[in-house]
């Protein structure tokens, strides 16, 4: 059973899905992603100051999925054999889970420098859902 996200819900956070728009807490200055709900640091429910980060960060942890993916990711797993999923800490401080792209999924390691790219996340109800993934910084 996969996790269902309706198109309106997906659209509601499209700036964050496409360009990782984050929120700075006006109380403590910590950066949260996505910029809604309670601050991840001081846990206050605040109106975040939204901003677009550089899109670069560091891999904190990574795992590789080689089978048993939720159904919305079945075709990606069928074409790519394996999907690397990482927790990334953006240089601005926010942490988020994301898939890796444009690389060997088995070669991703903790501490790797990564940059945001936009890829197809999955297709549901005939609608392609685009969003951010990360790839290793190669320069």
């Amino acid at each position, binding site marked *: 059973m996969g996790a269902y996200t309706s198109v309106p819900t997906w659209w509601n956070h499209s700036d964050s899905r496409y360009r990782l728009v984050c929120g700075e807490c006006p109380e403590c200055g910590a950066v949260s992603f996505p910029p809604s709900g309670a601050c991840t640091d001081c846990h206050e429910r605040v109106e975040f100051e939204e901003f677009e980060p550089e899109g670069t960060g560091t891999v904190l942890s990574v795992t590789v999925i080689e089978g048993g993916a939720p159904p919305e990711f079945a075709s990606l797993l069928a074409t*790519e054999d394996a999907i690397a999923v990482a927790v990334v800490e953006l240089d601005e401080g926010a942490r988020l889970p994301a898939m890796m*792209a*444009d690389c060997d999924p088995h070669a991703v390691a903790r501490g790797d420098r990564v940059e945001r*790219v936009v890829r197809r996340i999955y297709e549901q109800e005939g609608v392609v859902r*685009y969003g951010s993934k990360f790839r290793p910084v*190669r320069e």
Partner: protein
Amino acid sequence: MTGTDVAEKNAIAGVGVYTPRYRVDAETFIEAWGGFEARGVAAKSVAAGDEDTVTMAAEAAERALADADVDPESVTALRFATTTPTVEEFDVGATLAAILGLPTSVAVSVDTQSTGAGTRALRAGFDDEGTTLVVASDAPFAAPDDAVDHAAGAGAVAFLLTAEGTVGLREATTYTEEFPGTRFRGHGSATVERYEATAYERHAFSGPIAAAVGSLDDPETAVALTAPDGSLPHRAARALDFDADVYHAADRFGDLGAASALFGLVTAWDDGVDAVTLVGYGDGATVDALVLDGRLDASLDRETEAIGYAEYLRKRGHVVTDDGGVN
């Protein structure tokens, strides 16, 4: 040379190129099929399962914006060209604009139905007032035993045009003549087809190109052309009334559809050429011939991974369906 003589007109200020990391070479096809139908293609690029013409366009466009050091918020027009939009109806230009963070006031247009669409979009960008982002992204698709599919590659190229750009348009011509039944894709079909009358198709390609270039006042001998394979551009060049230095990228990346001629332009720049005749051909047929002065640096290199034929079939969608099943 700089574009100072066209300072009041838009000129290209930045360029970005993206190709997916997977490569499949001619030998791999020969092992699978006993032959390879794409003449002059040594290897070609293959998109990953999470890539399409929108994601490749976003990659190239972000690089062009960075190359020109232009804030996405200042872009006034987006011109997106592809023969393989991800949907038949729905403005994929709006999706691309949102991914890039372009302002909601941006004027979006999508050129499609023709491999000449990329050159046509670029030509329009020179005439725009304001900051125009031109993006051509393509991944042609045909039956796996068809020469079109053997040649089909994947990639995107983008240009950022402003009044302060360095690559200017010197002159441009157009030629239109109908040749029914050459490369086409029917309503509701994912695959490109051809009538397959070789001499007729070669004439339909070379004739209009010679006519368009022949009507330029002062064509440059460096000619970047739409390249359905690595052979046809050279054949077309032989029909010109001067000795041309032919530039295309089909030998490295395969058929790049609406982005093909623009990859040829970047290939010429990469070779140090600073004045190019750019020829965009679309079956139908229509041809735009542009003479461009100036060059920008753009690398076509990236790290790659070679794949086998079975992987190729899966990544191209020949055997895997959208729900992960098999065709």
